[in-house]
């Protein structure tokens, strides 16, 4: 079977798997950003309890394997009465994991906004919440964008693990095709290329665009 024949026969399934991977990536990324912002801000809170909660969360999700976390969320949580559909379990696990990494990126970016900005905001009598929202976060966002580019690529690749709980993503589809055809080079080779294309030609340009967009808002382009 030539590669062209292979593609014409299994292209539909590969494409559908790719779409599932893309949707998973977008949902997991949205969750990761939300968690990262919340946990990153909590890490800077004056309250010890709030800070501690975020620290524990980050330690657990950064310190243990994503695969084990995925199995926990899908196989163990039902024992405690929380049953998630496999697709949901998939993006929640990936999002929560990358959110923990992102929290440290958010915290670092907030702390690297120059001290003068915090003082200027205080000098016009801003409350801490307004200062964070109006002055610090917009600048921190620009600082943290390059790091988020890396994290999102990690996240995309991390979604391949959801194949192990039978979510029909790209990895799951090529595994299935390989199981019936034994065309390992074609199947896994195609998957490799598609993951690369998604990372290199979709996520990276998107982050570049976002960075330029933000720089323009700061008037630096």
């Amino acid at each position, binding site marked *: 079977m030539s590669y062209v024949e292979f593609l014409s026969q299994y292209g539909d399934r590969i494409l559908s798997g790719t779409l599932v991977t893309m949707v998973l990536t977008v949902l997991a990324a949205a969750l990761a950003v939300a968690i990262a912002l919340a946990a990153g801000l909590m890490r800077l809170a004056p309250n010890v309890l709030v800070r501690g909660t975020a620290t524990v969360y980050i330690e657990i999700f950064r310190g243990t394997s994503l695969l084990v976390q995925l199995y926990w969320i899908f196989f163990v949580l039902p024992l405690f009465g929380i049953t998630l559909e496999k697709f949901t379990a998939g993006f929640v696990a990936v999002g929560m994991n990358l959110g923990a990494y992102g929290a440290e990126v958010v915290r670092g970016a907030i702390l690297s906004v120059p001290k*003068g900005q915090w*003082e200027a905001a205080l000098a*016009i009598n801003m409350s801490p919440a307004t200062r964070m929202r109006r002055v610090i976060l917009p600048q921190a966002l620009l600082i943290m964008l390059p790091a988020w580019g890396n994290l999102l690529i990690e996240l995309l690749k991390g979604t391949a693990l959801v194949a192990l709980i039978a979510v029909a993503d790209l990895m799951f589809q090529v595994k299935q095709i390989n199981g019936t055809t034994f065309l390992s080079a074609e199947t896994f080779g195609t998957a490799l290329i598609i993951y690369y294309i998604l990372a290199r030609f979709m996520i990276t340009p998107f982050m570049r665009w976002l960075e330029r967009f933000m720089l323009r808002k700061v008037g630096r382009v």
Partner: protein
Amino acid sequence: MTDEDLSGFPLALEGPDVPMVSFRTVTKRYGELVVLDALNLDVAEGEMVTVIGPSGSGKTTVLRMLMTLETINGGVIYVDGKPLTHMPRNGRLVRADSRHLRQMRSNIGMCFQHFNLFPHMTALENCMEGPVHVLGIPKAEARARSEELLDMVGMADKRDQHPSRLSGGQQQRVAIARALAMRPKVMLFDEVTSALDPEVIGEVTNVIRRLVAEHNLTMLMVTHQMGFAKDISDRVCFFYGGRIEEQGAPDELFGNPQKERTQQFLSAVKEAN
């Protein structure tokens, strides 16, 4: 709670001549280092007081403590008769909480050596930010007032530029407009010309000259521009080692300094220029 005894300090200053700003035996320490040593300093309403002195003499700390950017280790600061660093509770003074600080801070505006404009906002947005998002003034009103202030500092034509497109002198003038937009009673200028190229210092000092001439603002300024200080100050304080070594009218202090340290400082500055 602190164990300091504040019973000697009044809960509020009363009388016909209450100073706008009053430092009462104010002490500031960083660890072992004493930056302000039982400082007493009164500034009357509408008075322009300039603080000069060698670096490390505590002059910038005076402004930073008034802006509540630093905590206080001893003594009490009063603004407009009311305690700033402390607040009355059950008939005695206790440390100010964040609510009291916010209330008192609305009296004070500050301009910094490095301008500290918000880089993601235009000049106009920088000026409108406080009025709209702190004072809750309607946008149209805040815009009109901000445009007026930008016009006053000669920056009306640059109002839609971001700080990165402005020169240092232009940024500092916007920063002055931003502080004035909050309608403070006391304005603090912390070495506002020190980071500027020599040829643009004049555009900033001219704005401050106008403020002194046309407004009844109480102003405290730290500067190394001795000529400027001499021109516009009502009083000049020479700081040394966290204390006021000598103070007086600018003509006296610059023309006929009494203390040896003042003479040394002034002649060293003169040589450097």
